[in-house]
């Protein structure tokens, strides 16, 4: 090693104790490097040791007690926070939300069907036709004042129609309500009755 390298090494070895043999050998023959080594040794002796800065035992105890107290407080806060767990409000999954429009529509349909059914049960007389009718079909043949043959619905026809509507609406779709009447019956109804008034 040359002088520069030796001096760099002396700096890095400062404070670590014995010097390697190669450096000691160099110092014996190099006044400049020896001078640096002497300066560093003087400074090292002057810097003292770590324990020159130690607090005394009673102060250490005082500081340690404070640390213990602070940690106690931290731990008690942890325990408290575990005791008072905030109530977690789980968000309702979209599929469980009962107020969704789809369910509202179904609920409204059920109420409507039920209401219709009750009207059918209590407001409409569905008893069989009286003996005055010629047959038990839904339509009776009557003769008008001009002697023309005409069809006229009897009470039973109307009652069965309403009842049929209510039953079908309860269990099926509205498109099935009038599925069991004939074309002629349907045409007659459309011509002579207002379904809204009937309901």
């Amino acid at each position, binding site marked *: 090693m040359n002088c520069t390298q030796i001096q*760099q090494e002396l*700096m*890095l070895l*400062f*404070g*670590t104790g014995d010097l390697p043999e190669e450096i000691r050998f160099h110092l014996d023959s190099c006044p400049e490097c020896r001078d*640096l080594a002497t*300066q*560093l040794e*003087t*400074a090292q002796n*002057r*810097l*003292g*040791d*770590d*324990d*020159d*800065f*130690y*607090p005394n035992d009673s*102060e*250490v*105890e005082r*500081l*340690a007690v*404070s*640390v*213990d107290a*602070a*940690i106690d407080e*931290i*731990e008690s806060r942890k325990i408290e926070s575990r005791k008072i767990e905030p109530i977690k409000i789980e968000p309702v999954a979209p599929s469980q939300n009962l107020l969704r429009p789809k369910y509202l529509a179904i609920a409204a349909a059920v109420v409507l069907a039920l209401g219709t059914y009750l009207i059918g049960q209590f407001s409409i007389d569905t008893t069989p036709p009286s003996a005055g009718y010629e047959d038990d079909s839904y339509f009776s043949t009557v003769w008008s004042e001009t002697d023309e043959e005409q069809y006229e619905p009897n009470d039973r026809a109307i009652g069965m129609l309403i009842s049929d509507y209510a039953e079908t609406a309860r269990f099926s779709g509205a498109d099935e309500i009038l599925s069991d009447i004939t074309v002629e019956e349907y045409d007659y109804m459309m011509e002579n009755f207002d379904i809204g008034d009937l309901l």
Partner: protein
Amino acid sequence: MGRNDDEKIAGLATLAKDGDRPAFSELVRLLMKPIVALTYRMTRDHDLARDLAQETFITAWEKIETFRGDARFDSWLYRIAYNKTLNHLDRVRREVSPDTIGDQPAVDVASNPEANLNRSDLQADILAFAAKLPPQQRIVFDLRFYKSMSFGEIADVTEKAEGTVKTHYRQAVEKLRHFARERGWR
């Protein structure tokens, strides 16, 4: 610290890592002195050094699960103390004019009666020298000279490259040499 102390500290640190409070309390009592010595030389402020040392142990307890069992517990503590001290010095530097930082006298040594009682000429010289060093050089010098740590360990504590640490140390020693000459150390 001797080999027996090192083994004792390692054993206590293992227990503390598992949440053993008494073991940690013993570690506090065993390691308070070297931590205070470090923070004091770094800050040159008696009360602040003790506050930082206490905060170091409190943080250590809070973060104990992050301590790697294979590392030295005291090195891990030095890192916490170093970071806390450096953060504090950075805050102070932002608040005080940069021109005055390096020349600040060891205010507490002169003004704190307790520190005054314990103060020696030796301490005053060292604190005055420490004031000449930027914090990065100061911690490297301290850990190397007073804690006898290897450059690799210091690099670990300061999270710097080992080459950077060596450079800091050489620069600090060079400044010490000039300081000694100025002061007429013999």
